[in-house]
């Protein structure tokens, strides 16, 4: 076990892991722990994952296996404004590809990349369950509905102004 002076994990995460260890099937909380960690830190680092493995008493390979299997986990930092374009069916049918194209052109980055200044990153999601308002884009946690390619520059400047 890493001793506490070396720890890189956040105290609340450590506390959560300790709590899980008192429950039945502690290893089953791995995904929940990674969710909390990502929410706190923005993405999963190797050091963090290694420490989670040690504290939860599971092999490090299990933790990295899980973190790479699930698309939701990010292994590198995202931009300050994470733009996520829904590429679910309803959004696709309503022209999500054109929205994506507009963001790509405007930001000069591809899906999965972050602008050099670290401000914007481009991601996709498969359906946020608001298909009735397609096409949708989220910037950080805010959902924008019925987006048109023409609105893209405006969305970016609004995000910056927030």
């Amino acid at each position: 076990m890493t001793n506490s002076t070396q720890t890189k994990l956040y105290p609340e995460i450590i506390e959560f892991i300790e709590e899980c260890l008192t429950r039945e099937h502690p290893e089953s909380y791995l995904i929940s722990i990674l969710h909390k960690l990502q929410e706190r830190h923005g993405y999963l680092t190797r050091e963090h994952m290694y420490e989670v493995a040690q504290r939860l008493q599971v092999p490090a390979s299990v933790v990295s296996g899980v973190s790479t299997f699930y698309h939701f986990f990010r292994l590198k930092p995202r931009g300050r404004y994470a733009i996520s374009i829904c590429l679910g069916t309803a959004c696709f049918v309503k022209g999500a590809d054109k929205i994506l194209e507009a963001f790509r052109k405007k930001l000069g980055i591809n899906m999965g990349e972050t602008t050099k200044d670290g401000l914007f990153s481009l991601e996709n999601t498969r359906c946020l369950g608001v298909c009735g308002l397609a096409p949708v884009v989220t910037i950080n946690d805010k959902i924008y509905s019925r987006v048109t390619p023409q609105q893209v520059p405006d969305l970016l400047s609004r995000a910056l102004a927030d």
Partner: protein
Amino acid sequence: MPKVLEKFQQIKQEILKEHLPHYDSGKIIIQVGSATCENAAGADQVRAEFRKLLAASGRDDIVIKQTGCTGRCSREPIVGVYFPGQFPFKYEQVTLPKVQEIFQQHVLAGKPVLPLILDKKTSNLYSRVVTLCSMAAPRYAEQDHWADILEQRLKAKGIPEGTVRIFTGCSLGLYSQEQSSTNMGMIVFPQKTVYTFSTEAELDAIIQSHFIEDKILKANLAAMDPLIKRFISLYGDVAFFNKQTRLTLRNSGIIDPEDLGDYIANDGFEALAQTLEHNDPSRVIDAINRSGLRGRGGGGYPTGRKWQDAIASTDPIRYVICNADEGDPGAYMDRSTLEGDPFSIIDGMIIGAFAVGARQGFLYIRAEYPLAIRRVETAIAKCRAAGLLGKNILDSGFDFDLDVRLGAGAFVCGEETALMLSIEGKRGQPRLRPPYPTQSGLWGHPTVINNVETWSNVSVIIRHGAEWFSRLGTEKSKGTKVFALAGKVRNSGLVEVPMGTTLKEIIFDIGGGVPEGRTLKAVQTGGPSGGCIPAGLIDTPADYDSLAQAGSIMGSGGMIVLDDQDCMVATAKFFLEFTQDESCGKCVPCREGTLRMLEILERITQGHGQMEDLDKLERLGRLIQKTSLCGLGQTAPNPVLSALKNFREEFIIHIQEKRCPSHKCAQLIRYEIDANKCTGCTLCARRCPVSCISGTPRQPHVIDQERCIKCGECFMVCKFEAVHKK
């Protein structure tokens, strides 16, 4: 009084005592939608604005409440205003200025703001609204026929036009009356009187008594189910609920999903209390069996049989799981229920757990639904605090608790064996079945896994009876199904109808048809595991067997409407890209096979396809179907195979003419400049990234087709609509 029921009554009274003012509390209620969809449309700000106005008004007889969504995505944000004892009003697409108007004119001054009313169906204040319905089975032609007769008779009796509004539909498949093939039902608002009749003479008698003499005609009064009675009293939105039957969505958009009192006041947990009082698991399983309920997650396996399978094992440790992974990208039925009525899922799960002897249950919710997760966690905590979850529930001796586990963006984890591994904290890779989860599931113990909608139906079946439930729907598909209508349809949103309602009724009568004067091309059901049903088969009833016969599947309820501007090759490719991306990679046919199919489709959409590619796609598709390990691979070829079957011609045009008739496939679009319209402004030539447009200023320009990379820039920038897509 028996022990459990007594305990339940005690809890109920306690909760209701502290319960927020309810619809019959004598207060004016402003109800604002609160769901992911509502908030995306701006409901958050609307609620805040009402709060501000209310605070400023200093009134204490007005209450603001929240509710889940009613599935009316295209009309959100929706606001309801309830005056005690009056017909409820609902407003659509409420913006901040509209909040002002509604608050000042309606809430404070009592005058409804008619132009803002939902569906704008009420252009004046009708003194009465009538809904005609054909009882359990939709018989639309008959409804229309009776509506005509009713209209004539009212006129003949001298009732002025425009004072009675007539709707038809089967909003009320839920009478406690025997199903009859000749009876019609009729609700009259605002009195909420429900009549049945089967002859013109009876209809005349009702008109004479109710509309002329203002007396209720007792002889024809229908016995009403409490569920539908409550529904009628709370819903202002008659027009849309026309032709729908809301069972799963019975509370969504009516109650406050975070308020246990609201759920309990609306009949919640009654079924649970009854079940625990009888203390006989076989009674529950028997009822579920007789109801004919089948799994709503896609497979359609009989729910009662699944529960029976689970108790066949002697292993004393058993689990129940709610599959709330809702993976179909383009479906949102489950999200709406999770956000709008989480208690109903918990209610069903406790009953199910009791039936199969489980002590612990899990709800596996996809991480993309943060509000749903929060609502479910709140609901669980409130149930625990009230003694509805935990040890010795309602003094029955039965222990059961629930835990939420989150998905993490893997579609394959909706598959039951993968889902269970994911709950165990592992990579969600499916395994071979058998053993089925009911034999060996979570940590090797028998596990019952059901979909959100399946669980939500359990308590209504127990409460109102298997026979009552099985009257709805068709021979082999009982009850109702919620569909998520999206795509090229006017009223996108959730629709709940009796199984067997035709696609045409869903898309045209309820969905309002295809907008912008376009024509229907196909309906996609079943998401990435399903297929496209061509417009010609629009009369197909939506039930498990008929949809399968039409070459698609029921799936979980996603229904995407495609119009003549949608390319079937591109749509098939879209789904295959999805499944190929989501394949867990465990077995070769799925991992490699879908990649090969995708390569072929890419070739076709780029104009490099060969005719033999079509046979190759079919051969590969059938091979993947037969040899893949799990449902993802086994169904991945479906969208492609069904498109090939129903829209082969379109594939051939892509291959032979190198043309995409619906202008979707970017590489097959040919951009041409219309010399008659081009003013020679030079804009396109300056913007073209490969400088392949030439021409002198003020003269028509031309595109060098050889060098054009089809980026579409010229088409977008031309201000004179001189660039055409061919």
